[in-house]
């Protein structure tokens, strides 16, 4: 083995390789895919404001659909984005049962990110400051930043697109959401280390 001089693969690329190997017959690689993408999917689901059990159901449905349709997925490399789309759609489909006002064809927009009081109480002082700054961003920026925070830089653009953000909203350039976070943190003398 010689070390490769290129940058390490992003999460999406590693997930894509595991999935391609799975399709090619190496069935055990699916377990690697699940380990890689579950944190991103959990945050994509939870950022829609649904309760934990509903989020778990949505993630399970996405994985089962992936297995059922594995042979027909044209771009194994794009598996992370595919899963994010299905998870988000599935959370909204499940929550429609209780919130009927949401139209079928509507592109759902994530609500303002919430933390329950118990979770807020376990934050460090610095995390509490960060949380206050995050709360000043638009709901779309909150959702985007929360989800990409669990992926790698090469994945940002694809994840943004999967969440329904316009192409070019992030990656390789900073984009408005990341810029706003930087500006609001930069303006806080209490944040600077």
């Amino acid at each position: 083995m010689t070390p490769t001089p290129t940058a390490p693969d992003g999460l999406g690329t590693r997930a894509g390789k595991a999935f391609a190997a799975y399709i090619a017959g190496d069935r055990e690689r699916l377990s690697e895919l699940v380990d890689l993408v579950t944190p991103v999917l959990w945050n994509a689901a939870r950022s829609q404001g649904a309760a934990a059990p509903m989020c778990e159901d949505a993630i399970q449905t996405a994985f089962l659909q992936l297995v059922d349709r594995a042979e027909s997925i044209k771009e194994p490399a794009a598996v992370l984005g595919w899963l994010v789309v299905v998870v988000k759609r599935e959370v909204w489909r499940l929550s429609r049962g209780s919130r009927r006002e949401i139209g079928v064809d509507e592109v759902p927009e994530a609500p303002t990110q919430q933390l329950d009081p118990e979770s807020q109480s376990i934050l460090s002082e610095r995390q509490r400051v960060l949380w206050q700054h995050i709360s000043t961003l638009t709901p779309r920026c909150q959702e985007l930043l929360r989800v990409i925070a669990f992926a790698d830089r090469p994945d940002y653009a694809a994840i943004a697109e999967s969440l329904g953000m316009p192409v070019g909203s992030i990656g390789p350039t900073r984009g408005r959401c990341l810029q706003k976070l930087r500006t609001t943190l930069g303006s806080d003398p209490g944040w600077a280390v």
Partner: protein
Amino acid sequence: MTSHTEAIDARDIANLGQLRDLFAHADPVPSDLAERMKFAITVHALHAEVAELMDSALLTTRGTDAKVEPTPTDSVTFTAASVSLMVSASPSEQADTDARVRVDGWVTSPGAQVEAVTIEGSVSQISDANGRFVMDDLPHGPVHFVITDPDDDDVRPVITPTIQI
């Protein structure tokens, strides 16, 4: 001044890292979520019947401290409509240390294929005329078993919940 059209830099990555820590701390991924997803996928992909854990003794609750026990011989029974499986785990005789596990199993159907799926992959054995089988070189950690009939593809496989050995 920085602009949103500039490339993402180290400070942006650091900000996202802090954001990641915040959510990982305040709303963590349930610790067993990935394992439960893998189990659901396997059951679904095999169109399998899930066996029920009947008798857990110590095996399911014991964690990694299993290594320090000198002669653990704990048994677990799983039951499904078509078949039952009993397994007991003990230190492997193959190895000098307790790093490996021997599983002695008994399944109610002779000639059944029993597959043990561990963190290292899977190992298969065919049960003998009395339904017995031995797997002598398994790693410690999570394992589940899949029981299939090698002579009849139409029989639904049976899958057990994951236990710790």
